[in-house]
């Protein structure tokens, strides 16, 4: 049986990298005594997969992983057991038993939403908000993206599904971006391209990125990886 788990990652734990988050959950699951399934072979490991790695320094309220269990304890019981062994900063938000044949979390991811704020003390170019809106309004945003094979030109506009500015409590850029395995766009990439058009360079570590949700595609609609019943 496959179970999908949604969790958040906040505070100091944003400095734990993806591989260490995986190790953390392997140990947490042992502590929680959840009956996880193990792979066959000489070196059995827990059957566990993560939807989409989160960069070091980013926070999130929409992280997902799938685990395979040998018996299902119920969604609430599992959530409570796991929550009981968490370190401060990671919270188990939801647990959902997946229907048989559901695709795994990583393959399902189509998009991700982010809320990006600027580190205090950074002075941004004048009228950047209006200019960002205009940047997004363009029909086409040709950019050069570095890939494993080299560089290629893409139309960034096609990968931005939504972009708007929220000013409460402080200016934040909210974005819904392509996060599929072939076309993932990082929120910092969008803002770097934008500020480059203003001939202005973002200082290092200027952005505070918070992931809000991960989405999969269902009949052309984007829905969260754990859907409401």
């Amino acid at each position, binding site marked *: 049986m496959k179970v999908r788990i949604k969790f958040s990652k906040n505070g100091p734990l944003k400095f734990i990298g993806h591989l260490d988050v995986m190790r953390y959950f392997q140990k*947490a699951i042992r502590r929680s005594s959840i009956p996880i399934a193990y792979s066959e072979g000489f070196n059995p490991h827990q059957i566990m997969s993560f939807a989409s790695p989160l960069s070091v320094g980013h926070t999130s309220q929409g992280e997902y992983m799938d685990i395979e269990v040998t018996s299902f304890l119920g969604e609430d019981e599992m959530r409570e057991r796991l929550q009981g062994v968490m370190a401060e900063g990671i919270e188990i938000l939801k647990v959902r038993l997946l229907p048989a044949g559901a695709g795994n979390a990583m393959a399902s991811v189509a998009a991700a939403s982010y809320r990006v704020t600027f580190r205090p003390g950074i002075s941004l170019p004048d009228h950047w908000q209006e200019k960002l809106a205009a940047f997004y309004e363009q029909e086409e945003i040709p950019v050069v993206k570095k890939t494993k094979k080299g560089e290629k030109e893409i139309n960034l506009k096609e990968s931005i599904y939504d972009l708007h500015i929220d000013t409460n409590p402080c200016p934040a850029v909210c974005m819904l971006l392509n996060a599929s395995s072939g076309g993932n766009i990082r929120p910092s990439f969008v803002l770097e391209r934008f500020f480059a058009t203003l001939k202005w360079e973002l200082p290092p570590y200027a952005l505070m990125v918070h992931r809000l949700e991960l989405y999969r595609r269902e009949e052309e609609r984007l829905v969260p990886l754990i859907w409401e019943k």
Partner: protein
Amino acid sequence: MRKLALRDDILLQVEKPARYIGGEVNAVMKDKEQVAVRFAMCFPDVYEIGMSHLGIQIIYDMMNQFEDVWCERVYSPWVDLDQIMRKEKIPLFALESQDPVRDFDFLGITIQYEMCYTNILQILDLSGIPLLARDRGEQDPVVIGGGPCTYNPEPFCDFFDLIYVGEAETRYRELLDLYKEYKAGGWTRRKFLCRAALIPGIYVPSLYEVIYREDGTIRERIPLEEGIPQIIEKELVKDMTDTYYPLKPVVPFIQVTQDRVVLEIQRGCIRGCRFCQAGQIYRPVRERDVDTLKRYAVEMLKNTGHEEISLSSLSSSDYSRLPELLDYLIEKCGQEKINISLPSLRIDAFSLDVMNRVQDVKKSSLTFAPEAGSQRMRDIINKGLTEEVILEGARLAFEGGWTRVKLYFMLGLPMETQEDIREIAHLCNKIAALFYDTVPREKRNGRVQIVASTSFFIPKPFTPFQWAAQNTKEQFLEKAYLTRTSIAGELNQKSIKYNWHEADASVLEGVFARGDRRLNQVILRAYEKGCLYDAWSEYYRNDVWLSAFSECGVDPDFYTVRERADDEVFPWDFLDCGVSRAFLLREWHRSCRGEVTPNCKERCNGCGASRYGCGICTESGKGAQL
């Protein structure tokens, strides 16, 4: 949510920021307003090394069981953060509260190896605590040292207010109570130190003066206060079962060196190898009750979620209930898919059988530590291991399917000849040849791999070799060269790989091991000149150390290349490690005659540790107690 001491942009530019954030599973949080004493416990090396150390976990667990104490952890900032902290004047902080170390009541530093001495100064410096104990006042934390290097604390004694000699489980409560009295009574720091000097196991370096002879050796030590002890006796836990043990050790977020549950099955060693300090200072051997260990193993695995458990001791094969313990662990861990790692096992039929049961089919390498190539040399060092035993172990291993063998040797042992060194090569060759004789051609999968490693022998205090001369760097290198050419001349040389240690750092380690108080200024000078992380070869700067010695007018050779007279007063002689100097001298003389001494299980040799009335010394049928 805890607030971190370091800004995000700093944490994002340093390597492995998780080293500095604390908040790990099982880390202890308390309300600082509700505790009387705040203790910062430091391992002066990088997080991944420090977090792998069992001793700190024991102390952390013990102190945090005290309701009036909050013990937190501190490790050395890595070189990248070190520079940022200096530039931005960010004070060193403890991981749990992220509060500056200088606001704590105590800073405890465990001193596990000589090459960390400059890191001690880094910790003090970044904390904003005066480097020299004599410059500290009532507002500064009490800086206390512990760990194996404190069996000769003199080279770094100026940096410490107190040194705790021996095992930490016994006297900290008393010391903490005294500290509370000091604070409540508004005593001077000096009064506190004088009172602390009366607690057994506590050494207060500033209360003693050392007078040297013209030849540089010690004439006498003078206590500067009335009533303080001339001799400080080590502390030890008499009952290993009825004491503290961390059942909820902190689980790091990042991978550390020892990323597993560590089960300390016993303390001490029966074997009395003459080069080994641990084999002397942790006497007598004390075993932990097997049923307690079983319970600990289950609880610790449950509390940490680790996927591996390791047995810890100086010589696990000597633990009397090992078969029972391993049977239990193999059954438990097999169900839970937990690995068992078994360091420090003698290779014999029993251990190979156990390894077959705990390891998967891909056989990792087996390790032998003959320490010396010739039987003559092994008798001199009292390594109770014969060539027949080594070859029999190797034969069983080859029959069992192992094809990789690691062998550890030392070069520069006392009375070593060129022939002894050539014997290292011969032994490697014999083991390789044995593989080809044992395993038929059709069953072989390529060559056998023999990896021979040599380290350079460094005489340590409280060993029979504390009188011995250490080799010079040139001798070390000649011997490594001879080992290499001898191996190259063997028939099976293609199956043998040879590694050797660097010689420069071994010389410095030897200076510190048997050094005296005059080295404090050299360490301070080297630190001021930029030495740090000397245990990391990429940061070790021998030329800077040499100039620090010469600027201070201290000759490193004085501490290393001299053979000591039987009656020379050593800098560490004021400590009583449980084993008498008379016993060590007897062992030194026996060694010079090539005589072996039986182990504690075979016969009591009257080392002096029986006075503690515990462990193996109280078990009957072990021969006459001397």
